[in-house]
């Protein structure tokens, strides 16, 4: 079943005070996200990720096109009761304590009073803030605010979550915890749509990703498919600092790092290379086919179309 269906969503702003000029923030976007998947929306800063999320949240109005979330219009309150949203670099009412803020959001989301207290304790525990519920948010660090932001998004047990740069402001441990939390949410059957420019997070978490650049969708697909194209090359790593001359004769590109050597060569020469290492009694560490990384794919998609065509020709 489709969780998010975007049909030609487009946004153009008018900029300037006197003679207003149109500025296209999002070119017609067509995208679907299935229920139960973690979907990464990737792009560099200013690519149109936040604009797309704001359009889906009904915070800005589209110039053209439409979107349906859980089969409902984006301004339908019944739909909004079933989604959670974490904005980029969230800022909350700093005169409230974390518990008061979550209570307020729980009230607005229609969480029953008798359940609210238990749910607040639960989410504060889940985001790693079990002991600071009574502290005013003005005393929170950026990372703690990010965690509160995640807590308010999951408080009312939504089916679908929208996270705008969820790892922003978090230390490595915090990022790891958020990644674990997103995987837990997926296991609970929830759909997660998150924007990021940190590719390692996307590669580790996402079932599918879309790449957006200059307001235009440049590519979309399953992470496994995008990173599985093999170049017909293998990477062989062994212990030592010596490179047998027979390996160089096979056309291997070798790099010595500390006490290991990494060689990349044609897949056709793989067996000959392994035989050469055995003859020299060198200890083999790994033999791995060279695949496209998400980063390679991302960089390729961000290049202008003409540059890509030029490289191919």
């Amino acid at each position, binding site marked *: 079943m489709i969780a998010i269906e975007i049909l030609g969503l487009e946004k153009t702003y008018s900029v300037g005070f006197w003679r207003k000029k149109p500025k296209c923030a999002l070119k017609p976007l067509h995208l679907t996200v299935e229920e139960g998947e973690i979907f990464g929306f990737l792009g560099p800063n200013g690519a149109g990720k936040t604009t797309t999320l704001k359009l889906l949240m009904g915070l800005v109005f589209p110039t053209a096109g439409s979107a349906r979330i859980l089969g409902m219009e984006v301004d339908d309150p019944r739909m909004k009761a079933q989604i959670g949203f974490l*904005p980029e670099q*969230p800022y909350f009412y700093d*005169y409230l304590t974390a518990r008061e803020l979550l209570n307020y959001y729980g009230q607005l989301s229609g969480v029953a009073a008798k359940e609210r207290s238990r749910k607040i304790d639960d989410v504060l525990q889940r985001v790693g803030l079990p002991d600071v519920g009574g502290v005013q948010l003005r005393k929170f660090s950026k990372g703690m605010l990010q965690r509160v932001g995640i807590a308010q998004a999951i408080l009312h047990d939504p089916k679908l979550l929208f996270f705008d740069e969820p790892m922003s402001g978090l230390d490595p441990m915090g990022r790891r915890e958020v990644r674990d939390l997103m995987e837990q949410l997926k296991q609970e059957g929830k759909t997660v749509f998150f924007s990021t420019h940190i590719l390692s997070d996307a590669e580790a978490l996402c079932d599918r990703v879309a790449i957006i650049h200059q307001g235009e969708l440049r590519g979309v697909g399953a992470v496994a498919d995008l990173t599985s194209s093999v170049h017909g090359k293998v990477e062989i790593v062994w212990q030592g600092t010596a490179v047998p001359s027979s390996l160089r004769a096979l056309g291997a590109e070798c790099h010595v790092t500390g006490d290991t050597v990494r060689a990349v060569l044609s897949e056709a020469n793989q067996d000959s290379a392994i035989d050469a290492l055995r003859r020299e009694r060198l200890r083999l560490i790994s033999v791995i086919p060279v695949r496209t990384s998400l980063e390679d794919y991302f960089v390729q998609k961000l290049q202008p179309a003409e540059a890509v065509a030029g490289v191919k020709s």
Partner: protein
Amino acid sequence: MSGRIVHIASNTFREAVRDRVLYNLIAFALLMSGAAILVGQISIEIERLVVINLGLSAVSLFGMVIAIFIGIGLVSKEIEKRTLYTVLSRPVRRWEFIVGKFFGLAGTLMVNAFFMAVGVFGALLYVSRHFQRADSWVLVALYFIILQFLIITALALLFSSFSSPLLSAVFAFALFVIGSFAEDLRGFAALTHGVMRWLATGAAYLVPNFSALNVISSVAHQQPVSGQLIWYNTIYALIYATMALCGAVLIFEHRNLK
């Protein structure tokens, strides 16, 4: 009223209290105590008149300043700090947000006015040692001041829904000043001719008529306020505030929250 409006209103009230807005009551209490002691010493026979004039004018001025300076930031601050995003991504309609904010600030002003009214009556009791029957008209003057608060709060929200806090403050304060001379503006319109008359009359009826809602002087002189004026002013203030609030909702419903 929808539950969400109540929650937004109570959060707005809590924000005002925690931002120490009600601390102005301390300044007011000091002003009233000082005035009562001073007036008691220097005025002969007119202590009540001075205390009522000074007290009610201060209630009006303090409340107006709070209404304008909080009201202008009610929407723009939420957009600027992006706190609005997590509210409107929930099952909250935009009009509910505006109406909730209005009631939150109106509630703050009423609580403020209540405590200041207690201060006025306290000072009155200090200077005249007992209450008179005519003092009950002070309550009517306070009621009219609260009606003024409702109008200026709705106007501040209206300006806040489309302009910056600074411009909103300028607009709201300008309307407060012009509205305080609305009767004079209507008198001036009657003296003009042709297109000028149309323009002046239009402007006179467009600005809020705060002068009709100001009965401080007559109440201080122990003059009664007619039931008809109370009724007319109530209807006028409610219609004016509702129209300003509807304008704020209409603008905000179509605003892109960049």
